[in-house]
């Protein structure tokens, strides 16, 4: 399902950001694009509203893995009241942080896949957001000798890569959960 009224949503985001930038004393400018052209190699990621920041405070947005960028994005999503499965329709970016993180995750997924093949043991990623977990799942979706699943709860959820026919040893039972 698409965002019902993208222009109205973009205007609401603009009002929110105008206040955040001014009240927060942030030296940032931003551009909001409705239905941006699709980035190459990101065919499965189709944001309907793209917000790009530039300015001297860009590094502040990107500290600790883009924590502030994601916080502002989250507040915008909450304001729009988009259900969780539609969060990717709105995308906040700065200095191509998303693109670079995507590349990093794909490389990490490739390394993890090789490790699992060699050791025949599962590999656990660090906890990640649902979007980032999705990138890892998708990066490995065509590897028929492996399977991936998300484990853990809430903010501690992480991706595990398993050999296809892996049988868990005694102890920690594996729990099947949705990504």
């Amino acid at each position, binding site marked *: 399902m698409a965002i019902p009224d993208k222009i109205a949503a973009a205007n609401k985001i603009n009002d929110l950001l105008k*206040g955040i930038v001014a009240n927060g*004393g942030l030296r940032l400018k931003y551009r909001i694009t409705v239905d941006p052209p699709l980035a190459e190699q990101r065919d499965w990621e189709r944001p309907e509203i793209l917000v790009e920041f530039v300015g001297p405070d860009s590094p502040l947005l990107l500290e600790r893995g883009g924590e502030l960028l994601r916080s502002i994005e989250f507040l915008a999503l*909450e304001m729009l009241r988009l259900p969780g499965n539609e969060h990717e329709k709105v995308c906040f970016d700065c200095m191509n942080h998303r693109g670079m993180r995507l590349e990093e995750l794909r490389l990490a997924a490739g390394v993890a896949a090789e490790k699992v093949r060699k050791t025949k043991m599962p590999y656990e990623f660090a906890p990640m957001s649902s979007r980032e977990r999705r990138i890892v799942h998708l990066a490995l979706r065509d590897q028929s000798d492996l399977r991936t699943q998300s484990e853990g709860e809430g903010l501690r959820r992480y991706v595990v890569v398993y050999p296809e026919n892996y049988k868990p040893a005694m102890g920690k039972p594996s729990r099947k959960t949705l990504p």
Partner: protein
Amino acid sequence: MGEPSKIGPTGDMRALIEQIAKALVDDPAQVSVNQVEEAGESVLELTVGPNDLGRVIGKQGRTARAMRNLLSAAGLKFNKRFTLEILE
């Protein structure tokens, strides 16, 4: 679309939290933020209507955490600590 930012640290953390809270809740008229100066830090006390508490706290406290992240990042620019308290 887009607005040029003001240059320089001319921020107002109380207004920042008030504006965000008003955007999040069902009843913006009941939103108020009181700024209290304590030893070395400013405490921002956010009050919202009883039905809107969940809107400003969020699942697993994520909305409140996002506002606190924003406060501490902006606070860095003023060399000042800001704390957000959500009053029930």
